[in-house]
């Protein structure tokens, strides 16, 4: 039978099938962080169940960590306690932890790929919905709740019903100024926030084949924003080159053997999908969101659609935008470049390339938050930090930061923030804050101009 990439990886991990019910799926790698793990550790302790495979778990501190003065004790008491709890839980259970200050510390979905923990053909989970990021490697990776974190601790398995399959194909050549972030925002704007619910999505076509691993991670990261539990891209030479030589990647002959297996994973010609969508790369433009879910996005040259649905109107009211209007020239005081969507070195290179020799607008506060210590080091070593400093941007230390504003990095009430993160929900970046999702290039341009511009007008 012809199989999809998803089928091949899933089927290879089925331990057992419950009669008329879900399957027992084996999990290769389990990533944890401070926010969604403590209750799972408690549960195991209360029931006197040991962690089954601690060596298959990697932990990091990212969600509520400060992005300034990380060498000092964390000021917020609850955050400090939660971080201490993670350290204690990892120590007690022999789990490797990249805590605050560690040279490998970073956002869980940036840290694991750059260390080579993420590899093609694996199953990976984390108590975080953006675990879909790792699907960029041809991995089945998805977010889970804390009860499931406890299940994986206890058994290295999960009880799951196999999701349906969906494929999004984008062929053609992307226009100048259109980044991977625009591609995924465009797809979500076309398909809506729940079109993927119950599905695992494969991204196929030239556009993804030509993308770097960083770009593929940005795309897969936002699969959950159309409801899909995960997204996947077939592993190819770009993938193998990225994985090769990384800290936890297989070495020498073991690597070659793995590559031979990974090459068998791409979807067979003619394998069936439950749902398919096709788009042309030429139709995509730089994107911005105007509402309070990631599906509410438009091309920069378009105007906000008119819609009488009460939820839609509520959303525009929150954003203080009007139907029928363009976002171009909207004054912006806050810009955030960071999050598990866009905080990898490539994102900062794009931003630095644009910013070089320019100065940010006086009204703008521009935060740059690298995804990991390694990215931070690279930014400094490549001289990008100097470019950003000269332009008046502030390079902070790694973490989830203003993407979800669990730490002090909050956008003030009623302020717009052009953000490279993944969610524009009400209050996501701070109570009453208004998020506009965009690419790192659009974010950098906004910081320079102090307002939203059509970047293509400058580039062409």
């Amino acid at each position, binding site marked *: 039978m012809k199989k999809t990439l998803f089928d091949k990886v899933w089927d290879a991990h089925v*331990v057992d099938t419950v009669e008329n019910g879900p399957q027992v799926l084996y999990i290769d790698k389990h990533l944890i962080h401070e926010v969604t793990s403590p209750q799972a550790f408690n549960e195991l302790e209360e029931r006197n169940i040991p962690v089954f495979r601690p060596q298959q778990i990697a932990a990091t501190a990212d*969600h509520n960590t400060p992005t300034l003065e990380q060498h000092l004790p964390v000021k917020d008491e609850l955050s400090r306690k939660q971080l201490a709890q993670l350290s204690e839980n990892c120590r007690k259970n022999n789990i490797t932890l990249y805590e605050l200050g560690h040279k490998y510390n970073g956002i869980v979905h940036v840290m694991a790929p750059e260390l080579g923990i993420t590899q093609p053909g694996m199953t990976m989970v984390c108590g975080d919905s953006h675990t879909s990021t790792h699907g960029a490697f041809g991995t089945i990776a998805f977010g889970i709740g804390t*009860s499931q974190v406890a*299940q994986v601790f206890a058994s290295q398995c999960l009880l799951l019903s196999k999701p349906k399959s969906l494929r999004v194909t984008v062929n053609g050549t992307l226009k100048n100024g259109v980044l991977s972030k625009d591609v995924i925002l465009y797809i979500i704007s076309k398909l809506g926030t729940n079109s993927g619910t119950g599905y695992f999505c494969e991204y196929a076509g030239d556009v993804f084949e030509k993308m770097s691993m960083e770009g593929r991670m940005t795309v897969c990261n936002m699969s959950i924003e159309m*409801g899909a539990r995960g997204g996947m891209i077939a592993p190819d030479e770009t993938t193998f080159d990225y994985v090769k030589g990384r800290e936890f990647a297989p070495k020498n002959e073991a690597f070659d053997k793995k590559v031979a297996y990974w090459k068998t994973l791409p979807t067979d010609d003619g394998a069936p999908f439950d749902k398919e969508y096709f788009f042309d790369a030429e139709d995509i433009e730089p994107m911005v969101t105007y509402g309070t*879910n990631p599906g509410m996005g438009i091309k920069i040259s378009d105007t906000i659609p008119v819609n009488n649905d009460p939820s839609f109107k509520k959303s525009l009211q929150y954003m203080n935008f009007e139907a029928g209007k363009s976002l171009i020239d909207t004054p912006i005081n806050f810009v955030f470049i960071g999050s598990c969507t866009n905080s990898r070195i490539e994102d900062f290179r794009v931003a630095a390339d644009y910013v070089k020799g320019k100065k940010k607008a006086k009204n703008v506060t521009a935060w740059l938050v690298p995804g990991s210590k390694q990215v931070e080091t690279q930014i400094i070593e490549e001289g990008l930090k100097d470019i950003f400093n000269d332009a008046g941007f502030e390079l902070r230390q790694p973490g989830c930061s203003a993407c979800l504003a669990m730490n002090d990095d909050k956008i003030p009430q009623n302020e717009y923030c052009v953000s490279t993160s993944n969610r524009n929900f009400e209050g996501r970046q701070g109570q009453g804050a208004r998020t506009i999702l965009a690419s790192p290039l659009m974010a950098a341009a906004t910081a320079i101009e102090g307002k939203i511009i059509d970047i293509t007008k400058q580039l062409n």
Partner: protein
Amino acid sequence: MEKFKTHTSQAIPLNIANVDTDQIIPARFLKATDKKGFGDNVFRDWRFNKAGKAVSNFSLNNPLYSGSILIAGDNFGCGSSREHAAWALVGFGFKVIVSSFFADIFKGNALNNGLLPVQVSEGFLNALFAAIDTDASTLFEVNLEAQTISIKGTNLSESFEIDPYKKTCMINGYDDIDYLLSKKELIEAFELQKPY
């Protein structure tokens, strides 16, 4: 986990689509290391303004509405995987959430906490909202064994789907850990001869 067979109650309406888990429980409340107290902050930024004053026209604050069933708009629970959202709804006292569509991870989290997600057709959802509009004291009955939800005092009823395994778990109060631990030998055997 508490056993769930049938549940009859008044309901609180929340006729908004795409309610995300950041609204159910904002991120700044996720710093606890236990499951207690989240109910106090459920829908925090819709229930209270920035000064901490209750927003009187929000349905959870409206004295007209009460009960342990929440009837919500389409695509309920989208966004973050935080199980804190399920803990917050349970903590507030909800036993059942009704919507025309649930986000995947939320649905699983709800089921793992004895909170029953009942997915109904759009037409029936509108009938539920209309019934509350007409009389806020209307009672609704959810029968898990029969997989039905009905509006008491009327002949309006609809059946709903649930994974048979999850149904057994809810009715008996079992959880997945017990099941997975019973498969330990199979899991260890799998590890010794992984096909990849």
